[in-house]
């Protein structure tokens, strides 16, 4: 286990490098929210999810739904690393004719849905969870949402549906990086007590440090053990995690690093890798 954790920590740094390199050459895209979700994605694809990159449509796979579609550079990097498609394809991000669209479009191996219009992924995840249950399939459904995304009313409609149908084959992870485009979530529209909200909606809720990969892995295990209700893991993260001048800097919500910034960022990440 410790070996696995060490390996994933190293991988997190390399995934961050991939994200920054692909965003710099694309010259646009969502840097902050891609860097904040890395440990969550790795705990899923490196530990929890059942999948076969050679058979992306394998019907006994677990499903991962990226509801916060703008975080796709992070998912693309992790899917390429998991072997769903060649890593060199990452460099086609946002380019004409690419399977790596600016926001996810069905068709890229490993992607379960198209997304980008916020708030819809959780309802889709519910539908998949209901369908799998109707077929008595033991597969689980994981859905990543943002905290800003929880402004959307549809998130709460879906939260009610999941609890009403006791969807214990569903686990939501909230990448709570505390920022949305206009600024701090609490300034834009304060959602106050997030955990209490989900509890009140009938969910089992866990709060963890979303960059502590071991804690994310444990929370995913806990979610699987909870019966008769859905679970949400509220993962506290840092927007732009891993690069000093991008962390907490909301300028990087929807912009890519410039060449010089990329070089500085890669140096920092190389340093972090050495320290590991």
């Amino acid at each position, binding site marked *: 286990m410790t070996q696995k954790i060490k390996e994933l920590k190293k991988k997190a740094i390399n995934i961050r490098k991939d994200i920054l390199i692909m965003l710099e050459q694309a010259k646009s895209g969502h840097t902050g929210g891609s860097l904040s979700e890395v440990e969550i994605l790795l705990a899923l694809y490196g530990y929890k999810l059942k999948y076969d990159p050679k058979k992306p449509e394998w019907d006994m796979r677990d499903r991962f739904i990226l509801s916060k579609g703008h975080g796709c550079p992070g998912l693309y990097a992790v899917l390429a690393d998991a072997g769903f498609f060649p890593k060199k394809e990452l460099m086609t991000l946002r380019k004409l004719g690419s399977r790596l669209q600016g926001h996810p*479009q*069905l068709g890229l191996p490993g992607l*379960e*849905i*198209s*997304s*980008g*219009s916020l*708030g*819809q*992924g959780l*309802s*889709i*995840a*519910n*539908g*998949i*969870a*209901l*369908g*799998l249950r*109707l*077929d008595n399939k033991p597969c689980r459904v994981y859905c990543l949402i943002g905290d800003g995304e929880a402004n959307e*009313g*549809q998130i709460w*409609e*879906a939260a*009610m*549906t999941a609890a*009403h*149908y006791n969807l214990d084959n569903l686990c939501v992870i909230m990448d709570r990086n505390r920022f949305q485009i206009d600024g701090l979530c609490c300034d834009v529209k304060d959602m106050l007590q997030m955990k209490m909200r989900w509890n009140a909606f009938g969910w089992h809720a866990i709060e963890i440090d979303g960059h502590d990969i071991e804690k994310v892995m444990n929370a995913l295990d806990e979610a699987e053990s909870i019966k008769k209700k859905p679970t949400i893991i509220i993962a506290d993260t840092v927007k732009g995690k891993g690069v000093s001048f991008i962390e907490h800097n909301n300028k990087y919500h929807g912009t890519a690093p410039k060449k010089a910034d990329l070089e500085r960022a890669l140096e920092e990440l190389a340093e972090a890798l050495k320290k590991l």
Partner: protein
Amino acid sequence: MVQMKPTRDGFGEALLELGEKNKDVVALCADLTDSTRAGWFRDKYPDRFISIGISEQDMYSTAAGLSLTGKIPFAATFGVFASGRAWDQIRISIAYMNLNVKIIGTHGGISVGADGATHQAIEEIGLMRILPNMTIIVPCDALEAKKATIKSAEYKGPVYIRLGRNKSPNITKEGEKFEIGKAMTLKDGSDLTIIACGLMVHESLVASDELAKEGIKARVINLHTPKPIDKDAIIKAAKETKAIVTAEEHLIHCGMGSAVSEVLSENFPVPMKMVGIRDRFGESGEPEELLKKFGLTSAGIVKAAREVLKLKKRG
């Protein structure tokens, strides 16, 4: 005696049949289960019925998720909510992914009556027509609604079916073939063509009989599928009759008539008149009163026919 039945009943009957034949068929409803007739399915197949509550956006995205597991979801509510309330969900969760979701919008048109403008769906053809991958069916009677529902389950991809609340006369026959995207010529004629869908098909047939008394031979086409549109039937009618009238219980902007005009203007322009609602909301009243007020009657179609014939004569 003509049999009278609401088109929503045809949907309800078909869904029951489908439930028996295909275990992948599931139904969802947003708190209008009896009104939409999805309740008949719920009572027989409760395990495959998903009550979603008053949350249409959630319903259409949930239906998308179900279709991703191989289910064939029929998600029903009133047309106003099925089209407008959940439009972005239909755009992204369903149409963009080209998923096999069947959107059932009942209580379509002005003939909803007393409930008034908020509940009168007069924009759905437009709202759905502008979405790539979408198919739209507007059945003209309960039997056609039944066939359309069954065919839509066999068809892979998103389908919107527009249904009515009130009893309407049966026009089609049991043995007649229904094919998605293939218009039906109900009556031949050489002076002009009336292209209609839904409730207006019956009115068009009555109008055609009226016109016949004056020696005007009007062809009547049932364009039950505004999208994908049957271009061949429209162009053929334009070439052979050289005048077109469209009739629909819908806004003329972006509706079935607009779709017909797009085909004509690009391929074979001929004089055309559109019977429909012109740039306004509906209002409360008895269905018959409202249809009359908005000119959605055989008389309204006859009037449009005379006008289009004048234009044709002028050349």
